[in-house]
């Protein structure tokens, strides 16, 4: 029995399981930025003692979890404008420093959500392309290209069943060739100059996945870090 067939017996991952898997693969001691949306779940799975420091683009390292309602401080928010707390060793800095930290390659890992990722690692996550939509980009483009490693956490299909891992993004791009790995409910897939390669499958087979995505995927490489 091949690895792929064994994998097919597993159930798809829940959001919490995807987040736990992302957290598990972040090296101890990393400086990490978690994007708005699904990636914020990763924080719940980063055990203290691993020396992982969270960066928030609005100007803080050492971000802690949400405060108790009575301890909310309007001067202390994260990139989603949600109240957070400071951990021992936290620091504050202005916006140009915060983005220099990203662009300058000082942030080790960035976890982002996505509308589409291409097999070569292009990312589209800031605009649905709808003509009447009010656009907003925030720090997405800086994060995508700035971190030493950018990974994506997302559902593999849209709500109406269309693949989000595509040969070529049709939505407006956030960054070119910036994503290394995607974590989804059905598969962990590496993307990049050599195309898409399956790392691990959950509740599907290699052949089913290729059919679902309409893509040729490189062989399952086995679990790697």
């Amino acid at each position, binding site marked *: 029995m091949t690895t792929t067939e064994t994998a097919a017996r597993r159930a798809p991952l829940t959001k919490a399981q995807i987040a736990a898997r992302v957290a598990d693969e972040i090296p101890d001691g990393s400086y990490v930025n978690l994007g708005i949306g699904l990636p914020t779940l990763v924080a719940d799975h980063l055990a203290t003692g691993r020396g992982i420091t969270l960066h*928030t*683009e*609005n*100007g*803080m390292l050492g971000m802690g979890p949400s405060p108790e309602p009575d301890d*909310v*401080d*309007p*001067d*202390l*928010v994260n990139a989603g*404008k949600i109240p957070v707390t*400071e951990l021992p060793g936290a620091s*504050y*800095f*202005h*916006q*140009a420093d*915060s*983005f*220099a930290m*990203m*662009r300058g390659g000082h942030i080790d890992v960035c976890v982002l959500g996505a509308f589409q990722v291409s097999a070569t690692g*292009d990312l589209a996550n800031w*605009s649905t392309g709808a003509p*009447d*939509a*009010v*656009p*907003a*980009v*925030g*720090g*997405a*483009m*800086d994060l995508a*290209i*700035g971190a030493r490693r950018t990974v994506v956490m997302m559902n593999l299909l849209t709500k109406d069943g269309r693949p989000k891992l595509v040969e070529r993004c049709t939505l*407006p*791009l*956030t*960054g*070119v060739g910036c994503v290394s790995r995607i974590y989804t409910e059905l598969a962990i897939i590496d993307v990049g100059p050599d195309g898409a390669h399956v790392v691990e499958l959950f509740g599907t087979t290699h052949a089913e996945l290729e059919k679902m995505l309409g893509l040729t995927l490189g062989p399952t490489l086995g679990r790697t870090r």
Partner: protein
Amino acid sequence: MSAARFAPSALDALGDVADGATVMIGGFGPAGQPTDLVEALLEQGASDLVVVSNNAGNGDDPLARLIQRGRVAKMVCSFPRQVDSWHFDSAYRSGAVELELVPQGNLAERIRAAGAGIGAFYTPTGFGTPLAEGKEHRRIDGVDHVLEYPIHADVALVRADRADGVGNLVYRKTARNFGPIMTAAARRAVVQVREVVPTGTLDPEAVVTPGIYVDAVVEIAGNATIAMKESA
């Protein structure tokens, strides 16, 4: 630049803002919004403004009302869309306000560059995306970069926590955000602080914005964001 002037009111600190002026407004969401100074700008009456700010107003806050009243011709910002940005959304859809959407790091660096006297800079952020269309680009060390120009302003409105008698500023937590770079990028920087303290009582090692960048200071009793929280 002359020493900071201490004004008795936000309107007095704001001084004269001309029609068509470029105004930088600090803040990221609720943190660091100079709400009293923007309220003063509403009252002062300048129109046809170019506003440089990360966001484009929430609910009926002063920046949102400035947009609602048609006083803003153009917004330069990274994240205008919010769940409660209805005044901007409506003005944008009707064409009443122009939008220059800038990736947040490019916005920050363009503001920083203005304050630092940099003529332009190459950045990898945005290359290959719609936001870099029509911009000059160059491959440097194998990485594609986009040419970006500084953003200067006539006046910056910023909120800090404390100022001393020469205009040195310290901020509070993530309310620092755009304050230090906006005070440097504008010809005139107007700052509202929670407290003015005697010169010599701020640790010089801990001063974030040196007074050289600050032109006018107004002390607003209490904490603006706490007030916002209580009214929310």
